[in-house]
């Protein structure tokens, strides 16, 4: 139990809920039938069991990136845990990097926005190069969903999308994968 608690409590918002769940709801646990788990508890249980991903939900836009690879460490872990091929995982990492790069962007800098957009197009082209077409789009949606997992991150990401509003761009060709 101690090990499980320490694992989940790397995610602050989840700590209190899991602690309550793990402890059976406090002293009332010994009186009558146990109360059904709350929605939150059920969901956190699914996280603990690996059904749902363990994600960094801190207020930081960029989260923790100890290895400085431009991807949150929780996403690195998540990608590493996939059953995809190394090349596919590299493409997922590239996509995560391209999304992460938009979060700290100065959207008033046209050159920076264009560079970020190019990086995103390349990463998506790389996904389509590494996966079959039926899978590639879903992998982008997945890494986008995992990356943009808090409101602050969504707002930062949205600023990039707004900067790209009304734009016309071409699909990237050639060497689109970084690795």
């Amino acid at each position, binding site marked *: 139990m101690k090990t499980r608690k320490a694992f989940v409590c790397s995610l602050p918002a989840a700590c209190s*809920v899991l602690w309550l769940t793990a402890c059976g709801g406090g002293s009332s646990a010994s009186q009558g039938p146990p109360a059904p788990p709350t*929605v939150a508890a059920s969901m956190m249980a699914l996280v603990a069991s690996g059904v749902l991903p363990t994600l960094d*939900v801190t207020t930081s836009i960029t989260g923790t990136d100890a290895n400085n690879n431009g991807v949150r460490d929780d996403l690195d872990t998540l990608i590493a845990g996939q059953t995809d091929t190394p090349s596919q995982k590299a493409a997922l990492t590239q996509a995560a990097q391209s999304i992460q790069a938009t979060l700290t962007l100065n959207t*008033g800098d046209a050159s920076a926005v264009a560079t970020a957009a190019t990086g995103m197009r390349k990463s998506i082209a790389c996904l389509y190069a590494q996966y079959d077409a039926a899978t590639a789009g879903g992998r982008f*949606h997945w890494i986008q969903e995992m990356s943009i*997992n808090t409101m602050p991150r969504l707002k930062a990401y*949205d600023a990039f999308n707004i900067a790209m509003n*009304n734009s016309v*761009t071409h699909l990237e060709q050639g060497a689109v994968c970084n690795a």
Partner: protein
Amino acid sequence: MRKSSPLISGLLVLMGAGFAPQLLSAQQATCPLGFTVAFFNGVGNTYGNAVASMHATQAAIQESQSTTNDVYDSEDVQYEVMYNTTAAQAANAFDPVNTTILQDVAEVFVQRAQELDPTGTVGTNFFYMFWEWNEGAPQNYSNSLSNNSATNNFFANFVNAAVTAAVGALANLSGSQAPTAADYGQQEAQLTADAAAGRKLLLVAHSQGNLFVNHGYDFILPAVSAARVKVVHVAPASVTLRGDYELSTGDLVINGLRLVNGFASIVDPNISPPFTSADPTGHGYTEIYLSAALTDSITQSTDRALLEQRFVAALVALDSQQCAMSITPPTSTVSAGAQVTLNAILTPPVNAANLESITYKWSISGTAGGTFSNPVLGNEVPSLTTTAPTITYNASSAAISGQADSVTVEVDISTVNNNNSTTKALAATTTNPAQITIGSLNAMLTPQNPTVAPGSVTPFSVTLQGTVPTGISYVWTLVGTGSIGAGGPVTTTAAAINYTAPNSGTDTLSVSVQDSGGKVLATSSTTITVNPWVGTWVGSLASDCGYYAGPLTYTITSGGGNVLEFALDGFPGYSGTYTGNSAVAANGEVVFTLSGNTFSVVEADSCQSGTFTRQ
């Protein structure tokens, strides 16, 4: 619609936004070449979603052509993402541009999650699940909410609220937040550039993109005509359409919009796939409309197959021949063995900027058996490919008058970025081939049937009518006792020969015009009569009764038959007849007696006589 950011406004200026397509009229003088597929994204899309949808469209088109290259019928295909965000419903006068509907949807999720779970865990730790209202991860993490009895249909209710937000945003696009000129500017600039490059345009729009695509189509149509721009509408949110469409019965967003704008505002659905938890809104571009897993109950085809069919139909229409091929000269009449230079003309010409290579495939059919000379192998062939728009047709030397050949040419092109795929017929003269007819060559030998003097030298020449092949020769044959040189037939390259007459008799001179292979193209002949009286005779008269005596020159010519015409010292007007060596004139009063190259003349009533010698 959302106002453009200063960044985009700047880009618009750089891109030359505001070009009127009518200004491109001069650009239409290029043969359309290459395809551009532009994708107008759906409601609530991130930029990455739009790019991914463009890739999905690209994959579908490639799949329909069984290729992994960006090629359609050997012309390159380029893909453009026309990206537009969807403005937030929460926008207000103080903050009209800073958020998109994505934040609206996310806030709905958080608010409802807070109601479900006041601790905030669901809203915080599982915030990411809001993405799954529409185009989320295929893992469908939100199923854990849907399948939990304690959530009381939380996620389904959230999806309904998200759809409501999307419907509201789409409705506003036709009203209070309608796209502005700034929203259209960069798209107009790009379409203008594509049109100027002579490209054919397939515009694909999903959801809100249909509101933009209609404007784009209407904008560029005057510049390119309907033959060069087609639209495929997917889940159209627009009242009017510009092309074929695909709309699902289960599309909650469009169904909601229909309720808001009125039933007549949206076209009827034409596919009916089953519900899928991959996209509970039934609206997603890739999850629904490009899904190979969903089968339309109406056609029993997959949604993906049906949409691919619509893409292909549009591409086929764009691919129809839009340039004219012709050959000059369109008709020719040549002699057997002759040559004709033919020129292929493509109207309008290809825009060189898109062209990687161009070849011309020439082919001959018909009865005349004409050929092209293969410059590589040196043989004669009935079909040949050239890189230049010119070729030489060789009429068969064995052809006869009245036979004809048809020459067709197909122009094949290879465009930039088409991955060296097999070239295609951009245009051909299948229905308007060049006609080459073998005509007769007439030869006329002149002078015709002359009467000449014995020993005289008469030049004969040949006049030809018709197309004269190169390398011809003239073979002269003489039957008789005159001479044209050597004893046998004489061959010349000049169309003339000298004939030396014998002393008497009738000769026949013939000429045969032959091509370089010895085939007789034309002949002509003439008879030559040697009249011993004809010629110029010089002598003098004597008279012993007072008439003229002195020098005199007789010029005698043939009057036909046995008639002789006399001119005395250049004064014509005297006629006579002859028989053998005797001739008479002036009703028999003047008697001529010929002896070789001299004759004597006697006129008894004037006591005149004389002897004259042929000059």
